[in-house]
């Protein structure tokens, strides 16, 4: 019942409540009215019967006194006009019936054993009839009771009448209830209609998401307020939805952009390393479930750094883009190609029959890259080295496969570049060692493992230290000292030589400046490789180093080999001209091992010649070596160049060179290359000795 009520619409609810309340009120009013009417009726009848009794008693007094039954009878007969008195009796003092009356003739019969003295006059609730007894008194003064009169009142008619009245009242009540509920229904529409309209609007808004809908403000009460608040809310919602929409759009755009950045390389528009990682995992899964083989191909450009250094990064980037295009074109649609970074590309190929097919693809890639690239007016030639490994022939693990491809790629590089190699297990050990060293070397500078050692250069006559040759050492964290011959070629190959060279230059310049100040040291010579000449502006590097160390170029010497001197362009030498004019010396290292042509000695502003240690080592017994050394010393003297003998290890060599008139010497006989702090100590002892 209550449940059903709850489901009712609000209008019906109000109607039901109205009806209930009106019904209840009507019912209560009816019931109380009925009770009131019944009570009044009882009171009226009680009083009436009393009055009638008393009047009768009065009128029968004399009749009773004088025993006149007839007169009493006639008096009682006067009750005929009172319809509700069914019968009446008059008893004398002794309680004997004296006279009687019955409304319907012949029905009167006196109640047996009636004692009027104990007679109570009352109407019990709901009784259809009642009796009323009244004493008949004698007249004044004694007023003694001389008899009793009783009347019997029948209430049936009264009740019927009351019933009619109740019925009429009920009708009136129902009519009123109907009228009131009709009026209330009309009135409550002023509440329910705006509510219904508001509900309808809300439904439209929530169902269709149409935020342009607005509720009509039909009333100024709470419902009107509700509608107005609702409208505000819809405004707010609409506003929020718009901004949310905007924000979502922006977010999607950014997400797409981020995804693009995250998965694609911006330079080549190829997938990046991140994508590659996902792809290789998928390829491995394909193998795992479908036994689908795939080849992993690492492509490294052979001389990209040169292109970058020569034409600039802009051209380098353009080149990468064009290479990406060509790679894409030389592959099938299903093959995957990505740029791993720098000049490294990777290809995942599946769906092949044999290794021969892969070889064909690799060859095709090499061929397509060989054609010159035309970039902003430059003709650029490039080649690549390719390393290939195959899953599952070589491995079924992502990292192993990548390392194998990398190894194979390095193998290709070692075999002269511009070729492709399949991974071979036996070669990988050597290669891995190299990779290991390479990784360590790359970190050496930032770990301060690259240290400059100094080997004294002494005057042969007097054995006095006049200068140092700066020599680089790689001292690993475990204390192992690695000689330049072991890591400089690798540093040159991976381009780290520039940074190492700069480090040596700066360190030795600062150190030399201190020594010049304190001990009046003549010079420190620093080696420069051909790579340094090729890939950096040597002149500005030296200039910067000397300036920041406040070192006079006079106290600085540049040590280069004959081949560097020959290979270096006249441009780079010209740039060095200023420094040379300011007094910087140039020493030719390993003299006698390089070019046989001596013409360059005169055409370049050389200040010093260093006799190669291979000749010195053979002194003094080897006639040929002796002849060469004698010739070099003679040549230097005649050209007014200083001469230094390298690698003096024995007293015999020293004596021989002294005899030959060599000015300066350098070697383990005097001192091995030592750290700066020991070199300083040697200078201190030199000065104390000389002093």
């Amino acid at each position, binding site marked *: 019942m209550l449940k059903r009520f709850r489901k009712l619409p609000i209008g019906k609810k109000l109607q039901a409540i109205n009806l209930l309340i009106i019904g209840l009120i009507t019912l209560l009013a009816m019931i109380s009215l009925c009770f009131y009417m019944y009570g009044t009726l009882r009171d009226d009848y009680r009083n009436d019967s009393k009055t009638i009794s008393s009047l009768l008693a009065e009128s029968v007094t004399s009749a009773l006194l004088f025993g006149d039954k007839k007169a009493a009878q006639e*008096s009682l007969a006067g009750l005929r006009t009172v319809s509700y008195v069914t019968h009446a009796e008059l008893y004398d003092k002794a309680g004997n019936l004296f006279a009687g009356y019955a409304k319907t003739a012949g029905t009167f019969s006196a109640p047996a054993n009636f004692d009027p003295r104990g007679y109570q006059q009352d109407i019990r609730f709901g009784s259809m009839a009642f009796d009323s007894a009244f004493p008949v008194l004698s007249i004044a003064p004694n007023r003694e009771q001389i008899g009793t009169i009783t009347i019997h009142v029948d209430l049936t008619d009264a009740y019927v009448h009351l019933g009619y009245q109740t019925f009429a009242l009920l009708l009136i009540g129902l009519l009123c209830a109907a009228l009131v509920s009709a009026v209330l229904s009309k009135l409550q529409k002023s509440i329910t209609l705006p509510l219904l309209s508001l509900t309808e609007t809300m439904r439209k808004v929530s169902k269709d998401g149409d935020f342009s809908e607005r509720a009509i403000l039909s009333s100024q009460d709470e419902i009107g307020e509700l509608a107005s608040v609702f409208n505000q809310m819809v405004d707010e919602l609409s506003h929020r939805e718009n901004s949310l929409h905007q924000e979502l759009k922006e977010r999607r755009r950014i997400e797409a952009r981020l995804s693009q950045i995250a998965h694609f390389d911006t330079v080549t528009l190829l997938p990046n390393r991140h994508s590659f990682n996902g792809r290789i995992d998928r390829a491995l899964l394909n193998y795992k479930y479908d036994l689908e083989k795939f080849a992993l191909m690492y492509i490294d450009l052979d001389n990209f750094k040169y292109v970058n250094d020569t034409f600039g990064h802009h051209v380098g980037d353009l080149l990468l883009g064009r290479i990406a295009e060509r790679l894409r074109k030389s592959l099938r649609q299903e093959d995957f190609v990505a740029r791993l970074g720098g000049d490294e590309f990777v290809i995942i190929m599946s769906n092949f029959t044999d290794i021969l097919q892969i070889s064909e693809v690799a060859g095709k890639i090499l061929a397509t890259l060989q054609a010159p690239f035309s970039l902003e007016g430059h003709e650029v030639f490039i080649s690549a080295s390719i390393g290939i490994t195959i899953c599952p022939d070589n491995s079924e693990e992502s990292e192993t496969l990548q390392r194998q491809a990398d190894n194979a790629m390095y193998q290709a590089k070692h075999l002269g570049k511009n070729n492709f190699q399949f991974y071979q297990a036996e070669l990988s050990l050597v290669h891995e060692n190299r990779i290991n060293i390479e990784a360590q070397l790359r970190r050496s500078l930032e770990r301060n493992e690259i240290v400059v050692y100094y080997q004294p250069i002494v005057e042969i006559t007097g054995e006095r230290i006049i200068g140092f040759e700066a020599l680089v050492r790689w001292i690993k964290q475990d204390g192992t000292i690695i000689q330049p011959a072991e890591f400089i070629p690798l540093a040159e190959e991976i381009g780290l030589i520039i940074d190492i060279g700069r480090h040596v230059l700066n360190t030795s310049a600062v150190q030399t400046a201190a020594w010049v100040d304190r001990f009046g040291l003549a010079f420190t010579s620093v080696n420069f490789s051909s790579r340094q000449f090729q890939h950096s502006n040597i002149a500005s590097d030296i200039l910067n180093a000397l300036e920041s160390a406040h070192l006079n170029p006079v106290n600085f010497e540049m040590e280069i080999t004959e081949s560097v001197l020959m290979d270096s362009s006249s441009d780079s030498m010209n740039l060095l001209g200023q420094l040379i004019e300011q007094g910087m010396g140039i020493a030719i290292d390993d003299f006698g091992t390089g070019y046989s042509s001596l013409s360059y000695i005169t055409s370049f502003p050389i200040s010093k010649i260093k006799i190669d240690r291979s000749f010195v080592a053979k002194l003094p017994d080897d006639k040929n070596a002796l002849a060469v050394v004698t010739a070099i010393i003679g040549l230097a003297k005649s050209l007014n160049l200083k001469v230094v003998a390298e690698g003096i290890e024995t007293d015999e060599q020293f004596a021989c060179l002294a005899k030959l008139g060599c000015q300066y010497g350098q070697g383990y006989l005097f001192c091995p290359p030592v750290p700066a702090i020991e070199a300083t100590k040697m200078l201190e002892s030199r000065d104390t000795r000389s002093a």
Partner: protein
Amino acid sequence: MRFNARLVVLLLACCALRPAIAVDAIVADESAVEAAFLYNFALFTEWSDLPANEFRICVLGSDPVLAALEPVKKKRIKERPVSVTNVSSATQAQSCQVLFVGRSEHASIGDLARQIGNAPVLVVSEENGYDPKNVIIVLIAQQGRIGFRINHTSAQANSLAVSSKLLKLAQQVY
């Protein structure tokens, strides 16, 4: 209002009664009934003047009523103690309020009436062929019942106010 209207009707009906004496039961002792009647007549009659400390009921001549009046002596009428006296002359009777003329005195009833004149004495007697105008209430015995006639004119002349209720019960009022 309805009920009150009805009451009025009832009241009118009561007043319109024309009662007749119809006493069925003959009292064993007729004298006792007559004595009771005398007492009741006194109740329904008003005297213009009454003695201060007694109400006198007198019986003229020797009559059994005198003895029957014995219980009445204990009662009070008009708030006065009742005294019952046997009188022998009209002179004596003049100071009585109620005078019962016994059967033995019926012959001289005319003289008696004359002697009493207009004195306020309620004269009661049994019917016995005398001129009824000399007596105010005449008791009539018929078919074992006792009724009465009231000489209202004499009563008024003697300054006695007889209650209308008594008049209603009378067989004849003249």
